Protein backbone atom coordinates (compact mmCIF):
# COMPACT_ATOMS: atom_id res chain seq x y z
CA UNK A 1 0.00 0.00 0.00
CA UNK A 2 1.35 3.43 -0.99
CA UNK A 3 1.27 6.36 1.37
CA UNK A 4 -1.44 7.89 -0.81
CA UNK A 5 -3.58 4.79 -0.41
CA UNK A 6 -3.04 4.92 3.33
CA UNK A 7 -4.08 8.56 3.38
CA UNK A 8 -7.22 7.82 1.40
CA UNK A 9 -8.08 4.90 3.62
CA UNK A 10 -7.62 7.10 6.69
CA UNK A 11 -9.84 9.80 5.15
CA UNK A 12 -12.64 7.34 4.41
CA UNK A 13 -12.29 5.59 7.74
CA UNK A 14 -12.52 8.91 9.57
CA UNK A 15 -15.59 9.87 7.53
CA UNK A 16 -17.26 6.55 8.28
CA UNK A 17 -16.54 6.96 11.98
CA UNK A 18 -17.96 10.47 11.95
CA UNK A 19 -21.04 9.26 10.09
CA UNK A 20 -21.48 6.41 12.56
CA UNK A 21 -21.13 8.84 15.46
CA UNK A 22 -23.71 11.20 13.95
CA UNK A 23 -26.21 8.32 13.65
CA UNK A 24 -25.39 6.94 17.11
CA UNK A 25 -25.71 10.39 18.69
CA UNK A 26 -29.05 11.02 17.09
CA UNK A 27 -30.27 7.56 18.13
CA UNK A 28 -29.11 8.18 21.69
CA UNK A 29 -30.88 11.53 21.69
CA UNK A 30 -33.94 9.78 20.30
CA UNK A 31 -33.92 7.26 23.16
CA UNK A 32 -33.63 10.09 25.65
CA UNK A 33 -36.38 12.07 23.98
CA UNK A 34 -38.72 9.09 23.92
CA UNK A 35 -38.01 8.39 27.58
CA UNK A 36 -38.66 12.04 28.30
CA UNK A 37 -41.98 11.85 26.43
CA UNK A 38 -42.97 8.71 28.35
CA UNK A 39 -42.30 10.60 31.53
CA UNK A 40 -44.33 13.56 30.28
CA UNK A 41 -47.19 11.24 29.27
CA UNK A 42 -47.21 9.73 32.78
CA UNK A 43 -46.98 13.20 34.27
CA UNK A 44 -49.90 14.39 32.13
CA UNK A 45 -51.99 11.41 33.24
CA UNK A 46 -51.04 11.72 36.91
CA UNK A 47 -53.83 14.09 37.89
CA UNK A 48 -56.50 12.09 36.04
CA UNK A 49 -55.14 8.81 37.43
CA UNK A 50 -55.14 10.24 40.92
CA UNK A 51 -58.73 11.39 40.48
CA UNK A 52 -59.77 7.93 39.13
CA UNK A 53 -58.03 6.23 42.08
CA UNK A 54 -59.64 8.58 44.57
CA UNK A 55 -63.08 8.11 43.01
CA UNK A 56 -62.59 4.33 43.02
CA UNK A 57 -61.72 4.42 46.73
CA UNK A 58 -64.78 6.55 47.45
CA UNK A 59 -67.03 4.37 45.29
CA UNK A 60 -65.70 1.30 47.04
CA UNK A 61 -66.50 2.77 50.44
CA UNK A 62 -69.95 3.84 49.23
CA UNK A 63 -70.65 0.34 47.87
CA UNK A 64 -69.56 -1.24 51.14
CA UNK A 65 -71.59 1.21 53.19
CA UNK A 66 -74.64 0.82 50.93
CA UNK A 67 -74.48 -2.97 51.06
CA UNK A 68 -74.00 -2.90 54.81
CA UNK A 69 -76.85 -0.45 55.31
CA UNK A 70 -79.08 -2.51 53.05
CA UNK A 71 -78.25 -5.65 55.06
CA UNK A 72 -78.92 -3.83 58.33
CA UNK A 73 -82.26 -2.61 56.95
CA UNK A 74 -83.14 -6.14 55.88
CA UNK A 75 -82.26 -7.44 59.34
CA UNK A 76 -84.40 -4.73 60.97
CA UNK A 77 -87.29 -5.51 58.62
CA UNK A 78 -86.94 -9.18 59.47
CA UNK A 79 -87.34 -8.36 63.17
CA UNK A 80 -90.19 -5.88 62.55
CA UNK A 81 -92.04 -8.37 60.36
CA UNK A 82 -91.64 -11.03 63.03
CA UNK A 83 -92.95 -8.64 65.70
CA UNK A 84 -95.87 -7.65 63.46
CA UNK A 85 -96.69 -11.32 62.88
CA UNK A 86 -96.59 -12.04 66.64
CA UNK A 87 -98.84 -9.05 67.41
CA UNK A 88 -101.27 -10.18 64.68
CA UNK A 89 -101.31 -13.65 66.26
CA UNK A 90 -102.44 -12.10 69.54
CA UNK A 91 -105.13 -9.98 67.85
CA UNK A 92 -106.39 -13.03 65.95
CA UNK A 93 -106.60 -15.02 69.15
CA UNK A 94 -108.41 -12.14 70.85
CA UNK A 95 -110.97 -12.28 68.02
CA UNK A 96 -111.24 -16.05 68.47
CA UNK A 97 -111.82 -15.55 72.20
CA UNK A 98 -114.52 -12.99 71.42
CA UNK A 99 -116.15 -15.42 68.99
CA UNK A 100 -116.21 -17.92 71.85
CA UNK A 101 -117.56 -15.32 74.27
CA UNK A 102 -120.62 -14.58 72.12
CA UNK A 103 -121.76 -18.16 72.60
CA UNK A 104 -121.64 -17.98 76.40
CA UNK A 105 -124.41 -16.94 78.78
CA UNK A 106 -122.48 -13.95 80.07
CA UNK A 107 -122.32 -12.38 76.60
CA UNK A 108 -125.83 -10.94 76.75
CA UNK A 109 -124.90 -9.10 79.94
CA UNK A 110 -121.71 -7.84 78.34
CA UNK A 111 -123.64 -6.66 75.27
CA UNK A 112 -126.13 -4.84 77.46
CA UNK A 113 -123.31 -3.08 79.24
CA UNK A 114 -121.88 -1.96 75.92
CA UNK A 115 -125.26 -0.54 74.90
CA UNK A 116 -125.68 1.28 78.23
CA UNK A 117 -122.15 2.62 78.06
CA UNK A 118 -122.68 3.89 74.51
CA UNK A 119 -126.03 5.43 75.44
CA UNK A 120 -124.56 7.29 78.41
CA UNK A 121 -121.75 8.65 76.26
CA UNK A 122 -124.15 9.84 73.55
CA UNK A 123 -126.45 11.35 76.22
CA UNK A 124 -129.52 11.77 74.01
CA UNK A 125 -133.10 10.70 74.64
CA UNK A 126 -133.83 8.74 71.45
CA UNK A 127 -131.39 5.96 70.76
CA UNK A 128 -131.15 3.16 68.26
CA UNK A 129 -128.99 0.04 68.46
CA UNK A 130 -127.70 -1.83 65.47
CA UNK A 131 -126.73 -5.45 66.03
CA UNK A 132 -125.53 -8.36 63.96
CA UNK A 133 -127.98 -10.96 62.68
CA UNK A 134 -127.41 -13.35 65.59
CA UNK A 135 -127.54 -10.76 68.37
CA UNK A 136 -130.77 -9.34 66.96
CA UNK A 137 -132.47 -12.51 68.17
CA UNK A 138 -131.22 -12.14 71.76
CA UNK A 139 -133.85 -11.25 74.41
CA UNK A 140 -132.39 -7.82 75.20
CA UNK A 141 -134.40 -5.81 77.69
CA UNK A 142 -134.03 -2.46 75.94
CA UNK A 143 -136.49 -0.67 78.23
CA UNK A 144 -134.46 -1.59 81.28
CA UNK A 145 -131.30 -0.49 79.50
CA UNK A 146 -132.97 2.83 78.61
CA UNK A 147 -133.86 3.27 82.26
CA UNK A 148 -130.27 2.70 83.31
CA UNK A 149 -129.09 5.26 80.77
CA UNK A 150 -131.78 7.70 81.91
CA UNK A 151 -130.63 7.36 85.49
CA UNK A 152 -127.16 8.44 84.49
CA UNK A 153 -128.13 11.14 82.00
CA UNK A 154 -131.07 12.39 84.10
CA UNK A 155 -133.44 12.25 81.12
CA UNK A 156 -136.09 9.85 79.91
CA UNK A 157 -134.42 7.68 77.32
CA UNK A 158 -135.89 5.44 74.67
CA UNK A 159 -134.02 2.70 72.81
CA UNK A 160 -135.19 0.96 69.68
CA UNK A 161 -133.62 -1.89 67.76
CA UNK A 162 -132.67 -0.95 64.21
CA UNK A 163 -133.87 -3.08 61.32
CA UNK A 164 -130.39 -2.75 59.88
CA UNK A 165 -127.86 -5.49 60.59
CA UNK A 166 -124.10 -5.16 60.94
CA UNK A 167 -121.37 -7.55 59.99
CA UNK A 168 -119.50 -7.89 63.29
CA UNK A 169 -118.43 -10.61 65.71
CA UNK A 170 -120.44 -8.99 68.45
CA UNK A 171 -121.18 -5.76 70.29
CA UNK A 172 -123.39 -2.99 68.99
CA UNK A 173 -123.50 0.36 67.29
CA UNK A 174 -125.46 2.80 69.42
CA UNK A 175 -126.62 5.90 67.58
CA UNK A 176 -129.08 8.74 67.59
CA UNK A 177 -132.24 7.83 65.69
CA UNK A 178 -131.29 10.19 62.88
CA UNK A 179 -127.95 8.37 62.68
CA UNK A 180 -125.94 11.57 62.96
CA UNK A 181 -124.00 10.58 66.08
CA UNK A 182 -122.92 7.01 66.64
CA UNK A 183 -120.83 5.04 69.08
CA UNK A 184 -119.24 1.96 67.59
CA UNK A 185 -119.16 -0.55 70.43
CA UNK A 186 -118.79 -3.59 68.21
CA UNK A 187 -115.77 -5.74 69.01
CA UNK A 188 -114.16 -4.77 65.71
CA UNK A 189 -114.99 -1.12 66.38
CA UNK A 190 -113.39 -1.25 69.81
CA UNK A 191 -110.32 -2.98 68.41
CA UNK A 192 -110.05 -0.45 65.57
CA UNK A 193 -110.70 2.63 67.69
CA UNK A 194 -108.00 1.67 70.14
CA UNK A 195 -105.76 -0.08 67.68
CA UNK A 196 -102.58 1.82 68.44
CA UNK A 197 -103.03 1.52 72.21
CA UNK A 198 -103.85 -2.18 71.87
CA UNK A 199 -100.85 -2.86 69.66
CA UNK A 200 -98.63 -0.88 72.03
CA UNK A 201 -99.87 -2.86 75.02
CA UNK A 202 -99.42 -6.18 73.17
CA UNK A 203 -95.87 -5.18 72.16
CA UNK A 204 -95.09 -4.23 75.74
CA UNK A 205 -96.32 -7.59 77.01
CA UNK A 206 -94.68 -9.66 74.30
CA UNK A 207 -91.30 -8.00 73.91
CA UNK A 208 -90.31 -6.45 77.21
Amino acid at each position, binding site marked *: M*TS*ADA*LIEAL*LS*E*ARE*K*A*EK*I*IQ*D*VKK*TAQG*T*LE*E*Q*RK*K*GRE*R*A*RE*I*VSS*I*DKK*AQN*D*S*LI*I*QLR*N*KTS*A*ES*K*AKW*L*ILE*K*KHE*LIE*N*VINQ*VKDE*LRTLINTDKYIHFLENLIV*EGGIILGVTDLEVILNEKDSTLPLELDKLAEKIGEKTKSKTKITKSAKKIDAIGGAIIQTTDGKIAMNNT*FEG*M*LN*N*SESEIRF*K*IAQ*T*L*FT
Partner: protein
Amino acid sequence: MLEVLKKIKEKQQEAKKIIYDASIEAQKIKQGLLQKSLAVNEEVFLAEIAQAEKRADELQKSSSLGIDREIIQILSRGEQQAKEIEIKAKANHEKAVNNVLEMIFNRSEIK
Protein backbone atom coordinates in the same frame (compact mmCIF):
# COMPACT_ATOMS: atom_id res chain seq x y z
CA MET B 1 1.62 12.83 -8.78
CA LEU B 2 -1.30 14.69 -10.31
CA GLU B 3 -3.10 11.42 -10.62
CA VAL B 4 -2.64 10.74 -6.94
CA LEU B 5 -3.85 14.17 -5.94
CA LYS B 6 -6.91 13.74 -8.12
CA LYS B 7 -7.67 10.41 -6.48
CA ILE B 8 -7.26 11.92 -3.02
CA LYS B 9 -9.63 14.76 -3.94
CA GLU B 10 -12.17 12.25 -5.20
CA LYS B 11 -11.98 10.29 -2.00
CA GLN B 12 -12.29 13.49 0.02
CA GLN B 13 -15.54 14.15 -1.81
CA GLU B 14 -16.62 10.58 -1.09
CA ALA B 15 -15.80 11.07 2.60
CA LYS B 16 -17.82 14.30 2.66
CA LYS B 17 -20.73 12.48 1.05
CA ILE B 18 -20.58 9.76 3.68
CA ILE B 19 -20.84 12.41 6.40
CA TYR B 20 -23.51 14.32 4.49
CA ASP B 21 -25.58 11.14 4.00
CA ALA B 22 -25.24 10.39 7.69
CA SER B 23 -26.48 13.91 8.50
CA ILE B 24 -29.46 13.45 6.19
CA GLU B 25 -30.19 10.11 7.86
CA ALA B 26 -29.90 11.79 11.25
CA GLN B 27 -32.36 14.48 10.16
CA LYS B 28 -34.81 11.78 9.04
CA ILE B 29 -34.41 10.03 12.39
CA LYS B 30 -35.06 13.36 14.17
CA GLN B 31 -38.17 14.06 12.11
CA GLY B 32 -39.48 10.55 12.72
CA LEU B 33 -38.70 11.03 16.37
CA LEU B 34 -40.81 14.16 16.56
CA GLN B 35 -43.88 12.27 15.40
CA LYS B 36 -43.03 9.19 17.43
CA SER B 37 -42.46 11.17 20.61
CA LEU B 38 -45.98 12.66 20.43
CA ALA B 39 -47.42 9.20 19.87
CA VAL B 40 -45.39 7.77 22.78
CA ASN B 41 -46.59 10.57 25.04
CA GLU B 42 -50.23 9.91 24.13
CA GLU B 43 -49.75 6.13 24.33
CA VAL B 44 -48.32 6.32 27.86
CA PHE B 45 -50.99 8.84 28.87
CA LEU B 46 -53.79 6.55 27.70
CA ALA B 47 -52.14 3.43 29.12
CA GLU B 48 -51.85 5.05 32.56
CA ILE B 49 -55.53 6.02 32.50
CA ALA B 50 -56.56 2.57 31.25
CA GLN B 51 -54.60 0.96 34.09
CA ALA B 52 -56.23 3.27 36.64
CA GLU B 53 -59.67 2.42 35.28
CA LYS B 54 -58.87 -1.28 35.46
CA ARG B 55 -57.71 -0.87 39.06
CA ALA B 56 -60.95 1.00 39.81
CA ASP B 57 -63.04 -1.83 38.30
CA GLU B 58 -61.15 -4.44 40.30
CA LEU B 59 -61.55 -2.44 43.49
CA GLN B 60 -65.28 -2.10 42.86
CA LYS B 61 -65.61 -5.86 42.37
CA SER B 62 -63.47 -6.70 45.39
CA SER B 63 -65.31 -4.22 47.61
CA SER B 64 -68.58 -6.04 46.93
CA LEU B 65 -67.00 -9.41 47.62
CA GLY B 66 -65.14 -8.27 50.72
CA ILE B 67 -68.27 -7.21 52.53
CA ASP B 68 -70.30 -10.34 51.72
CA ARG B 69 -69.14 -12.04 54.92
CA GLU B 70 -70.14 -9.05 57.02
CA ILE B 71 -73.56 -8.93 55.32
CA ILE B 72 -74.14 -12.61 56.04
CA GLN B 73 -73.27 -11.96 59.69
CA ILE B 74 -75.67 -8.99 59.90
CA LEU B 75 -78.53 -11.00 58.37
CA SER B 76 -77.75 -13.99 60.52
CA ARG B 77 -77.76 -11.77 63.65
CA GLY B 78 -81.15 -10.40 62.53
CA GLU B 79 -82.55 -13.91 62.09
CA GLN B 80 -81.20 -14.95 65.48
CA GLN B 81 -82.76 -11.89 67.14
CA ALA B 82 -86.08 -12.61 65.42
CA LYS B 83 -85.97 -16.18 66.77
CA GLU B 84 -85.22 -14.97 70.29
CA ILE B 85 -88.07 -12.45 70.08
CA GLU B 86 -90.41 -15.19 68.91
CA ILE B 87 -89.45 -17.49 71.81
CA LYS B 88 -89.97 -14.71 74.35
CA ALA B 89 -93.23 -13.59 72.71
CA LYS B 90 -94.65 -17.11 72.69
CA ALA B 91 -94.08 -17.30 76.43
CA ASN B 92 -96.04 -14.06 76.89
CA HIS B 93 -98.68 -14.70 74.22
CA GLU B 94 -101.51 -15.74 76.55
CA LYS B 95 -100.78 -12.83 78.87
CA ALA B 96 -101.01 -10.40 75.94
CA VAL B 97 -104.33 -11.92 74.80
CA ASN B 98 -105.73 -11.60 78.31
CA ASN B 99 -104.51 -8.01 78.57
CA VAL B 100 -106.36 -7.05 75.39
CA LEU B 101 -109.51 -8.86 76.47
CA GLU B 102 -109.27 -7.05 79.76
CA MET B 103 -108.98 -3.73 77.91
CA ILE B 104 -112.14 -4.57 75.98
CA PHE B 105 -114.05 -5.74 79.03
CA ASN B 106 -112.85 -2.86 81.12
CA ARG B 107 -113.51 -0.01 78.72
CA SER B 108 -112.39 2.70 81.09
CA GLU B 109 -108.82 1.48 80.60
CA ILE B 110 -109.01 2.16 76.87
CA LYS B 111 -110.46 5.63 77.11
